């Protein structure tokens, strides 16, 4: 007791307050999950456990199409944005503050600050202005742009942590630049790249507004489809498909963060 008269780490009430906040964050999600197993037609009146709504979701052809659209767009924009993020992170590695690198960095991070609705309408205006009609391609381009910062940040963090000692050592051992990249930088960076890729994938899967404004009939993504279902009223089928989407985001992100953790432990 006397050794620590003032325990600043334990401010009274802080712990309780924090757990209340965590409850606030997770309880609502639990509500959807629980009600997705509800037997009744009513979305919020419990009538017993059943998996019927999941069966309905799996047999709904439109949901299948929306899901495959979502996956195509997410995979394509994940690949494109990760490639952009890797080259950008390597190119900005030795950027000085106040230089041209700062502008590039600002542009990369821009989608984090500009509201989604502004990005959505600007992209819509642009695509219609130049008459670009690539079907899902339009969505892939738009998603790639806002996925870049999510892919970029973990890669950049890893590059900063890594330092350049190992690469310098490889150079001392007469590796050329390509060999240094291929045999040293890339393997060290790989977990961060995979992590960034998955976060980009999750961001694409999360998008609603841009897809809603840009997608034509037949190119509906899953969130846009769910939104359409909501217009018709709340039903357990929505809860079931939402739970599935929720669960898949959680799995993707847990794996992504796991990989980020791996890079930390190794260094």
């Amino acid at each position, binding site marked *: 007791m006397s050794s620590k008269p003032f325990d600043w780490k334990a401010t009274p009430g802080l712990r309780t307050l924090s757990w209340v906040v965590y409850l606030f964050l997770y309880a609502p999600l639990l509500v959807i999950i629980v009600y997705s197993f509800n037997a009744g037609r009513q979305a919020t009146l419990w009538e017993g456990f059943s998996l019927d709504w999941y069966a309905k979701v799996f047999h709904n052809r439109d949901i299948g199409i929306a899901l495959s659209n979502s996956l195509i767009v997410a995979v394509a924009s994940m690949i494109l944005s990760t490639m952009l993020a890797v080259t950008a992170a390597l190119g900005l590695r030795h950027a000085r503050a106040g230089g041209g690198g700062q502008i590039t960095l600002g*542009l990369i991070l821009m989608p984090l600050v*500009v*509201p989604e*609705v*502004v990005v959505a*309408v600007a992209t819509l205006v642009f695509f219609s202005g130049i008459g670009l009609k690539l079907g899902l391609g339009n969505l892939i381009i738009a998603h790639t742009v806002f996925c870049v910062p999510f892919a970029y940040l973990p890669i950049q963090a890893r590059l900063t942590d890594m330092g350049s000692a190992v690469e310098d050592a490889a150079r001392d051992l007469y590796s050329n630049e390509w060999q240094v990249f291929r045999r040293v930088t890339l393997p060290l960076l790989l977990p961060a790249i995979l992590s960034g890729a998955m976060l980009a994938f999750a961001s694409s899967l999360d998008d609603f*507004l841009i897809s809603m404004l840009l997608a034509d009939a037949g190119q509906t993504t899953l969130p846009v489809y769910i939104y359409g279902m909501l217009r018709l009223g709340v039903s357990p089928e929505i809860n079931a498909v939402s739970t599935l989407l929720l669960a898949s985001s959680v799995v993707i992100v847990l794996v992504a963060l796991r990989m980020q953790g791996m890079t930390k432990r190794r260094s």
Partner: protein
Amino acid sequence: MNARLTTILLRSPVLVTMVLFMLVPMGLAVVYSFMTNGAYGGVRMPFTALAYRQLLFQEDFDGNLVFSTGYLAILWRSVLLAALTVVASLAIGLPLAWYMACSAPAKRARLLLLITLPFWINTLIRTYCWVLILRDEGLLNGGLRYFGLAGGHFLYNDVAILLGMIYTYLPFMVLPIYAVLERVNGDVIEASHDLYADRWNTFRRIVWPLAMPGAIAGSLLVFAPALGSFLAPDLLGGGRRLMIGSLIQLQFTSSRNWPFGAALATVVSVAILAVLFVVVRKSFNKVAAR
């Protein structure tokens, strides 16, 4: 290959992509905002400032311009709700970030994960949760009735929108504050105690100034998307309590008034850029003054 050329080659793909598909579209939207509304959506010539006039004035039956506060009121409500979201997330997020930063490292990682996770879950679904809870036949009313209390209408009002926005954007506030507090050296705080500062003074003079950069970054990261948010006003406000985000979306869908929508988007972007500029400069001056 020389290093400079490599750097340029590596930077150019992302630079070209962001300029072409982010900056140019936003510039084009500004151009559209000065054009005339096409009959079936889209835009026509000539260039006018009609869209901006529509924001402030309405034509009455005789063709006279009358100052109208309808759209200004929506703008004002959007700014107010976004600001309230910032204040509320700061009030909740700062103690939480402090608690996280004070925990043991292993526990810290878990607490951090718990904050990060909801951020990646679909925003539509996270907003929809609150519909299930707040609607008339929802969980909250069910619970109230169970305890013999009178229920009420909790959905489709500004409080519901605010709640939804805090719920959506809270992680944006917690993470940057945590990032700066995590690096705070505990000795500074013990030193403040040794110099007879009580908890409140320690907070006010040590913790808060140290948390400041994170709080500023967090406020920007919450304010910007909150100002343009669409889902919370739409699902929890029932489309009746319009905010500027839903108003913009309406202009491009059912109202088919692209110049007006583009003008609104321009106003939002300018507002956010102005806030960014002021805040960044202010915090820069503070750093310079030290």
